[in-house]
């Protein structure tokens, strides 16, 4: 799987860790509830979600910004028993849980499941309300990281995170800089009905699954140079982008369903939604995926057309793109979008170079 897990697997022989895991496993299995046991992180696909992505905390955030930390924490404590409303990552998390349920039926002893961690810099006193809300919706979240004000970024690796979702773009940028797949979630403007039986994940190509090397050419030398370049290097795989490993992890889980003859009914479906055109620049993308041994269920080449209407038909639980222009278009038509702040696309808006303010030290 990803680099993070490979390192962890290497230290797997650690006696003390194994003892802890065995004790935790036993403790869970002894509980009288039907709660599914959380998987062993070394084998799982770990998704870290921030509290504001999982729940709608807009009102609470306002209190924090206007009245300060103490009032905010006091407010959360006063309303501890009131569950928070669903946030933008909520449908995605429910879809992950559904995949886990299907996997557990087919492979009751496997630890290759989705593992969901609540990763927040909220104070632990706010944690009680967060846990109560999780209980209210019966979400399968057993692992938490509440850093009481410090940045949670350092803990992402410690919790073996494969994908980090947050509404805070600064944290997401830092995570990407640390080599962790991450995206900033945006709430859609209209509600869309999503599948409750199939997790659908849509990816942009350049600077998301692949590196931004081709996008650099477009921005700096124009489209014609781009087409020539892609044709010339059709057989040379693109370098990988920040979300390649996440697609790989999804593929690994998909193959577990194929192995049990459930390809047609697979509860995970992946989409590539790219501005490239099939005729001129699409081949390189498909060949790159093949060279990585990765499959994608549907590859949609828009040749520059807006992505919004197509995504409206797909109805993914999450759509990853590196350009805010596409994120905004998708949002407007009801798609849950996640911005990946990577590559040269961050310096441009609608094709024009953005004036960068001097970097804060």
């Amino acid at each position, binding site marked *: 799987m990803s680099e993070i897990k490979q390192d*962890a697997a290497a230290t797997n022989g*650690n006696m*003390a*860790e194994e003892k*802890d*895991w065995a*004790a*935790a*496993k036993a*403790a*869970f299995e002894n509980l009288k509830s039907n*709660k599914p046991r*959380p998987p*062993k*992180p*070394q084998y799982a696909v770990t998704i870290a979600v921030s509290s504001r992505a999982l729940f709608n905390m807009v009102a609470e955030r306002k209190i924090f910004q206007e009245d300060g*930390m*103490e009032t905010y*924490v006091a407010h959360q404590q006063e309303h501890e028993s009131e569950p928070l409303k669903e946030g933008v990552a909520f449908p995605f998390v429910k879809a992950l849980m559904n995949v886990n349920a299907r996997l557990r039926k087919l492979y009751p002893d496997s630890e290759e499941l989705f593992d969901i961690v609540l990763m927040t810099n909220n*104070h*632990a*006193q706010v*944690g*009680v309300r967060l*846990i*109560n809300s*999780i*209980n209210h919706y019966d979400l399968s*979240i*057993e*692992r*938490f*990281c*509440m*850093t*009481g*004000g*410090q940045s949670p970024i*350092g*803990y992402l*690796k*410690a*919790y*073996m995170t494969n994908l980090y979702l947050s509404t805070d773009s600064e944290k997401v940028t830092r995570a990407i800089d640390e080599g962790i797949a991450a995206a900033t979630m945006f709430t859609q403007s209209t509600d869309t009905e999503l599948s409750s039986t199939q997790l659908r994940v849509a990816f942009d190509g350049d600077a998301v699954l692949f590196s931004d090397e081709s996008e650099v050419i477009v921005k700096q030398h124009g489209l014609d140079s781009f087409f020539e370049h892609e044709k010339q290097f059709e057989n040379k795989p693109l370098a990988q982008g920040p979300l390649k490993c996440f697609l790989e992890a999804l593929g690994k889980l998909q193959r577990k369903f194929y192995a049990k003859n459930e390809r047609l009914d697979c509860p995970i479906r992946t989409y590539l939604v790219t501005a490239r055109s099939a005729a001129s620049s699409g081949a390189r993308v498909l060949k790159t995926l093949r060279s990585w041994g990765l499959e994608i269920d549907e590859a949609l080449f828009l040749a520059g057309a807006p992505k919004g209407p197509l995504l409206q038909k797909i109805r993914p639980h999450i759509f990853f793109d590196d350009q805010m222009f596409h994120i905004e278009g998708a949002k407007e038509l009801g798609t849950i979008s996640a911005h990946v702040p990577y590559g040269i696309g961050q310096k441009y808006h609608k094709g024009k170079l953005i004036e960068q303010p001097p970097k804060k030290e």
Partner: protein
Amino acid sequence: MASSCYGDALIRRIKEKASKWIYRNPVPGPDGTHLNHHLPKSGLRKKDADAVVVAVTSDAVFDPGADEGDAFRVGLAFPLLQALQRVNERLLEQNPSESLLFDIILITTSSQRQQQSSQIMRSTRHHGLEVGRFCFSSEDNFLESLLENNVQLFLSTDRNETSQASQRGVLSALLDQRAASSPSEQLRVLFCGDTVVQPNAAGPMSTIQHDAQSFPAQLGKMRQRFGMLDSPLVIILMVSQGGRDSCSSALQVLRSCGVGVDEAYCLAGAPQSPILSLLHPHFLLSDDFGELEE
């Protein structure tokens, strides 16, 4: 050799702000040993009864075996002592007549160290450490010293010592290399939450539920003197085996005993050491007496 406990001179600032500590200048006896100057019980003023007595072994504070001329080199508990001092300073800044302060005792637990009393006291002054009292005890009588001085928390790098002290009912924590890389400006105390919900008889969590004057309860009170941000004392909860129910229960049990948790990490069986290496706690309080993986 009988143990002798007596106070050292304190930094002028603390003396100016609140002369609450009784101290005596150590007077050498006829044979060169220091006379017994136990603090008389009647001399304990009401204010001192609020103090949180923490005893740290000299082998934790000073690197045994190493010395820079006259003074010992500092050991892994040095940042811990600095952090304890920092909490006291901040408490006094807010309220110059504050009585809920850490009373730090430096204790020797071997005859060898017991003989090095002057060097230990000199090293303490050399490194600017604010020790309230010294107890020069040996392996045979350090436990009595702990009890006589109403020590509420005993910190040592020696597993045997902490185990013995726990058995005598003194809350103890084992210090390890992690303490050396902990901050000196903020005291970080880690509660291991799996036993919070089902406490063992002698552990910190059972004492907290019965005794409002226990170390955890006192710590909780101290924490409340500061705001959410920029506190020199931070309380951390780590639940290693349990999941969200254990985490929620632990937070609420601690809260009901007056201990407000700042940071919480729930692992549900995930590996502890990557997270512990980021937390930088000075010490861990657990009913298993800190038997965490190295």
